[in-house]
């Protein structure tokens, strides 16, 4: 519950931060990520996540360059059917319910390929932190670990401009965080479908 509170506070803080970005040539991107766990996270939960949200505030500092602040929330979950886990001479059997909540907070840059038509491709790179909260429910017990890890996030995407108002976007983001003492680096790929709201124009 504590981590939920923390996540909520972070998201609210991020929403409030947009005010400081609300100047000229700004965008707000709201997207729905479908996340595919990889690496250590994939070993732990090998199931894609349809639970998530991604929020991004960007400011155009050059005609083809946007700096952005991003946050989001991805919930990974898997119930593992009953099986036997053996460690040395000890064996445990039971069902496991595995959860990972990931909240990236990323500062990034996007290079936008301006084109005459309505399709605008972009590529981006971001650096920041990712908060991961991993919990395993096993029997009546819960084993929890959480960590703030350094995170790198490259992305590729395309926006579909409309004449006025919001544009649609489709993109791929790859989040890779680095090992910390409590938890190995967590990585996942998201496919994002969203809407780009220009404001302050």
């Amino acid at each position: 519950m504590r981590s939920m509170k923390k996540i909520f506070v972070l998201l609210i803080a991020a929403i409030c931060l947009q005010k400081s970005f609300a100047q000229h040539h700004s965008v707000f991107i709201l997207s729905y990520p479908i996340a595919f766990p990889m690496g250590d996270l994939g070993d732990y939960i090998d199931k894609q996540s349809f639970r998530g949200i991604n929020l991004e505030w960007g400011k155009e500092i050059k005609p083809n360059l946007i700096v952005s602040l991003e946050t989001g929330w991805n919930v990974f979950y898997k119930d593992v059917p009953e099986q036997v886990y053996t460690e040395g001479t000890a064996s445990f059997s039971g069902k496991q319910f595995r959860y990972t909540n990931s909240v990236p907070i990323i500062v990034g840059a996007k290079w936008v390929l301006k084109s005459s038509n309505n399709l605008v491709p972009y590529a981006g790179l971001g650096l920041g932190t990712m908060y991961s909260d991993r919990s395993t429910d096993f029997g009546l017990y819960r084993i929890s670990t959480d960590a703030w890890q350094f995170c790198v996030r490259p992305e590729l995407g395309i926006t579909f401009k409309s004449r006025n108002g919001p544009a649609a976007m489709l993109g791929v983001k790859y989040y890779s965080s680095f090992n910390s003492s409590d938890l190995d680096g967590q990585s996942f790929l998201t496919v994002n479908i969203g809407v780009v709201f220009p404001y302050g124009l």
Partner: protein
Amino acid sequence: MAIKLTRLLGILSLVLISGCYPKGAEFIDDLDLVYTNYSSSFDFSSKTTYAIPDSVIKITGDIFSDPDGDHKPSFLGPASAAAILDKINQNMVSNGWTEVNKFSNPDVIVLVSTVTTTNVYWYYDWWYWGWYYPGWYPGWGWYYPGYYPPYVTGYKSGSVFIQMVDAKAVAAGTENVPVIWSCILNGLAEGGTSSITTRVQGMIDKAFAQSPYLKH
């Protein structure tokens, strides 16, 4: 206006996400856990006979107390005890063991005990009240000087312990009794007796299945 709209969308999305948060365990037996462990230096394959008491004891505390003075602990009801012991005997026999009387020099002795605990929630985060009184800070906690508060809600969990003891080592006059195999069946002790019994019997089968070294 645009900012208001985006903020609204953000908050709306949060509400939607919290609505589809994964649920986890749904049924009582989702929380059942079977633990087994054994002494790797003990040669199970050369042992074939066992003795087992016809009662299951109830553990009521760390130290044996005997309020009625009959030198015996509290026992589990005979119907539940029989259901547990029959299942253990069935598994022992199918693993190639032979039950013998405790006076017939058994190789091992199997002891079965149970414990139930009522788990109560009475603690909640101090900071729930942080909004109320000026100068109250997060990170503080509660204490109840000299007494325990009433509980709000709780659940009952239970365990069945099965210990297999090296009977020959006991005969050699050692002070401590070597437990060469131990098994803990743990779960919620909620629901009717018959459903608990069925779950315990299923867990006993699993305990033997995950302990292949007991098989002859």
